[in-house]
């Protein structure tokens, strides 16, 4: 399926030089917006807008739970400053057209990405699930439960993870973790998303 890209500025999903950018056509059944304000077009198979920390509804507007069209949000998952992974989180609304979801999936899968579909909730899938865990690990570190090295080793050896929570959140950037958790906390109000002390410190130093 042919896709075209409308881009302004750097994309977190597809950094400059990414093969996905190079394979785009000048006009396609699927249009992908990277940093460009959304323009609706019902004749397209799907319109995909790259999301940051915001919900899709910010771009489309919402209507008492009945919103949905051929517009989907998406983000290629990456841990802060780490390189993007092969995972694309597609974001749908209650009445998103099934054919638009299928078209979006086809475009990304044809380029070798693994696609999952999430509803339009804060943090999509991964950030919603892992950020509270990183917050807990950072709190455990402050409380002296164990050293960062031992926490990471425990997760790698005990759970078979490729990395531990402290090394991962440090690698992705504590200030970035602050940004994500602050956004999640603003929407949900759940204490589990309140930025950890170490993330706040990093953010404050970042802005200093």
């Amino acid at each position, binding site marked *: 399926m042919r896709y075209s890209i409308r881009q302004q500025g750097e994309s977190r999903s597809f950094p400059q030089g990414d093969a996905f950018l190079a394979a785009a056509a000048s006009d396609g059944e699927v249009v992908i917006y990277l940093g460009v304000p959304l323009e609706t077009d019902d004749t397209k198979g799907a319109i995909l807008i790259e999301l940051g920390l915001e919900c899709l509804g910010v771009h489309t507007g919402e209507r008492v739970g009945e919103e949905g069209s051929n517009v989907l949000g998406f983000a290629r*998952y990456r841990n802060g400053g780490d390189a993007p*992974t*092969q*995972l694309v*989180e597609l974001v749908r609304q209650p009445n998103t057209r099934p054919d638009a979801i299928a078209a979006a999936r086809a475009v990304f899968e044809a380029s070798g990405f*693994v696609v*999952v*579909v*999430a*509803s339009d*909730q804060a943090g*999509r*899938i*991964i950030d*919603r*699930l*892992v950020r*509270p*865990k990183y917050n*807990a*690990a950072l709190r*455990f570190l402050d*409380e*002296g*439960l*164990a*050293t960062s090295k*031992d*926490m990471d*080793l*425990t*997760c790698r*050896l*005990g*759970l*078979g*993870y*490729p*990395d531990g*929570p402290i090394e991962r959140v440090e690698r992705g950037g504590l200030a970035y973790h602050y940004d994500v958790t602050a956004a999640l906390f603003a929407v949900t109000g*759940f*204490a*589990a998303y309140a930025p950890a002390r170490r993330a706040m410190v990093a953010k404050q130093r970042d802005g200093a």
Partner: protein
Amino acid sequence: MSKPIATVAVCGAGGTMGAGIAIVAARAGFRTICHDVAIEGLDRTLKQTEGFLTKSVERGKMTGADKDAAMSRLSRTTALDDLGVADLVIEAVFEELSVKRALFKKLNAICPDSTIFASNTSTLSITEIAGGSGRDDRVIGLHFCLPAQMMKLIEVSPGIKTSAATLEAAWLWCEKAGQLPVKTQDKPGFILNALLVPFNNDCIRAVEAGVASPEDIDKAIKTGLGYKMGPLELVDLVGLDTQVRLCEAFYPITLDPRAAAPPLLRRMVAAGLLGRKTGRGFFTYNSGKMFGA
């Protein structure tokens, strides 16, 4: 300095975890006494151990002579009095405070003063288990990961009264047993379960909140984070009823909302959807293929 550890006793050796711990000890050269209340469980353990070690030989991980030596170091008993010769007793009995405390109290009258008592608890407080044992300073947490005979990690957790000598002796034993000890405070779930149990609950809540299907949640976690197993697949493997029990152990102590059993989890348990062992949990396993529940 405590007496060097030469003989290890494993209580609850008829169970999966206890059997694995016994293999770790015997394989590393320690005389190992397997204890349980029923001889049938112990016979099963010895048979499974023989099978596991035979496979280890076939895979070139140990020699046939090493296997025979390990088997010769294993003995079994249902008599608690036989544990009086142990330098280290590791309990892997039912995860209930009163059961563990009663066991250590009995053993205190049987074992010499030099014997160290270790608990493999994953959720209970080592300090509380040690209380009433008569040797609080010689009780320590040694939490093995399942399956113990395959996993190197041991969470070593001293209680409030655990002596430095006990910690040192237990640590050295872990290393001699070929394991990798990590030190944690005596807090609910130590490191592993303190991170894992709430995370698994969060994943279950995401299903309940309609964030994504179980398949897509697991796929996202595996692809995005590189985990070998998805969290919902893991809950199915561990058992949804076990996840409820873990929540019930953690939440009253921590009052962390993430540790509370999600309503969906309780409903699934009530419906008999316990995971792999019943053929259906978040996925179904009847045909070997996984489908969303």
